[in-house]
């Protein structure tokens, strides 16, 4: 039982990180119909940028963290929207989706050739100790990840539902034409979601890299889990992506412990197919109307 709870907490911790990536993914999908196939690489890269600033430029860690995150948000929030999404969206959703695949190759190969192909250790925010509570040993790191991710998601939820800008953002996503007539700066709101997506990815990167090590190929698995989380929870809801992330994280952790380490990846994949078969709009999503 104690073992089970330890696996559960570890699963919730990685699940919270997948949720961050999945929320960014659904936000961008809602406002601009962009399916970002580079989402996993978005989570891989910030840690690499920070390590590169430390190892190649010799900066102290805290400056590298601030600079790395700022550079990432600038390049892959603002720059991504301006250089890739804006010119491409007029051709339709399909070319844009394929462009994000090309982008994922560029980010992955860039990290490999520009920095290193080896997995690098990434400093943890909290000491890597375990505390024992009621006979259950819990990693402090996992607790810290869950807390940080929950605070970030709570803040986002508050921003989106309680502030004026957040509600304008929602309006822009739900009906851009009406939002425009009401005087909402729709273009700025769409840009804002891209910046939020990049910030969430950077946060996820800092949280996950101490566990998985920073490596150029990390994005494949993280991206896969973010997609699965988004679909399982519901493609069009923030709370859906949150729930999806946690579910996928826990299932993955338990599958690795109790089923098979070599087929742990297969379990969430089977879950994905089952959800698509029985509840395609996701566990917490709403059905989308079909436009003619």
């Amino acid at each position, binding site marked *: 039982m104690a073992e089970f709870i330890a696996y559960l907490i570890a699963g919730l911790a990685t699940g919270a990180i997948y949720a961050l990536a999945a929320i960014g993914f659904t936000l961008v999908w809602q406002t601009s119909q962009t*399916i970002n196939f580079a989402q996993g690489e978005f989570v891989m890269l910030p840690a690499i940028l920070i390590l590169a600033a430390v190892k190649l430029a010799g900066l102290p860690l805290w400056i590298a963290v601030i600079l790395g995150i700022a550079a990432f948000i600038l390049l892959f929030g603002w720059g991504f929207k301006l250089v890739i999404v804006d010119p491409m969206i007029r051709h339709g959703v399909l070319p*844009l989706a*394929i*462009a994000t695949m*090309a982008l994922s190759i*560029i980010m992955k190969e860039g990290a490999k050739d520009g920095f290193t192909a080896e997995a690098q250790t990434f400093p943890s925010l909290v000491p890597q100790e375990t505390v024992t509570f009621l006979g259950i040993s819990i990693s402090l790191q996992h607790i810290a990840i869950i807390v940080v991710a929950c605070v970030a998601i709570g803040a986002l939820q508050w921003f989106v539902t309680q502030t004026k800008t957040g509600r304008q953002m929602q309006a822009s996503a739900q009906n851009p034409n009406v939002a425009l007539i009401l005087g909402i700066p729709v273009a700025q709101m769409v840009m804002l979601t891209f910046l939020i997506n990049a910030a969430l990815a950077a946060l996820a990167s800092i949280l996950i890299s101490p566990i998985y090590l920073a490596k150029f190929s990390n994005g494949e698995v993280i991206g896969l889990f973010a997609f699965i989380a988004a679909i399982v929870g519901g493609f069009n809801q923030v709370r859906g992506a949150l729930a999806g992330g946690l579910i996928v994280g826990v299932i993955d952790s338990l599958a690795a412990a109790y089923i098979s380490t070599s*087929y742990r990846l297969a379990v969430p994949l089977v879950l994905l197919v089952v959800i*698509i078969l029985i509840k395609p709009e996701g566990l917490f999503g709403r059905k989308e109307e079909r436009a003619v």
Partner: protein
Amino acid sequence: MNASRVDGVLVTLLLGVLILWFAPASMGRYGTYVLSLWIVTAVAVMGLNLTLGVAGLKSLAQAAFMGIGAYATALLTTKAGIGWFPAFMISGALCFVVGLFLGFPALRVKAHYLAFVTLAFSTLVWLVLRNEQWLTGGVFGLSNIPRPVIFGIKTDNALPFHRFVVVVTLALALILWWLLRSPWGRAFLALRENPVRAASLGINIRAYTLLAFAIGSAYAGFAGALYAPLVEFIDPSPFQLSASFFLLLMVVAGGSGYQLGPFVGALLGVVLPEWLRFTGGLYLIIFAGIVIALLIACPQGVLGLFERGWAAVKRRPMGANPPVKGAA
């Protein structure tokens, strides 16, 4: 698509076969290998071009299907001792059936769910290839895959095998060419242009999209059946998810929906790296960069660019046509 353009495709195909039949004479072993690899890749891209370019579906499992074909052919020709041709047919049929099973649940919902289902499938195939050592040899792969004997002629050397690949590819390209001119092919096009209208005209959208996806997947199986004896050794790495992304980029680079597009796209994806040897490992970045630039400037790919250029050349001497809006 008018009649003269389609004949253009046919003429180009036949001319291409003539050139490819004789071209390797002065290219040496490795040059011939690269040329064969280009054509084999083009077969997989042809299938994906049907799925993406004609039916408008994103399949992220083309490399996985190619892997299924390659492993099926390798196992059948080495362990079961079956001839290459039956193994080739079985590989294609296997991918067709798997495509039907995979596409059915996904397409029941919405076209873009196919992308996620195939994404999952691609990873599952890779897991099986890597973990089931008793069957697939795991990370060590399968080696000593025999090359076929056709009418008593051995194709063990690079040149005869290359010619064999050229002939098989021509046959596959002609089947696809015929298919796209048939009423079926017209229905595929109708799906891409306006699915709702196609449905109202009595075309069973779900059946036709499923069929397009399954045929596209079968072509990946055929490509795998050619790939296995070409490289003579296979392991799971060339059939990963990133390889499927790469094949999609080739479709777009060549010109999605154009029947000759796959050959141009595969040329950029397979032969360009050889020319870019001097850049070291950067060729993937360069290729992906080219694709993004193409998508921004001309989403119809290289062939679309040619077509646009040709139209501009033809228009200029006349001087009578009013400038088209947005063409400046």
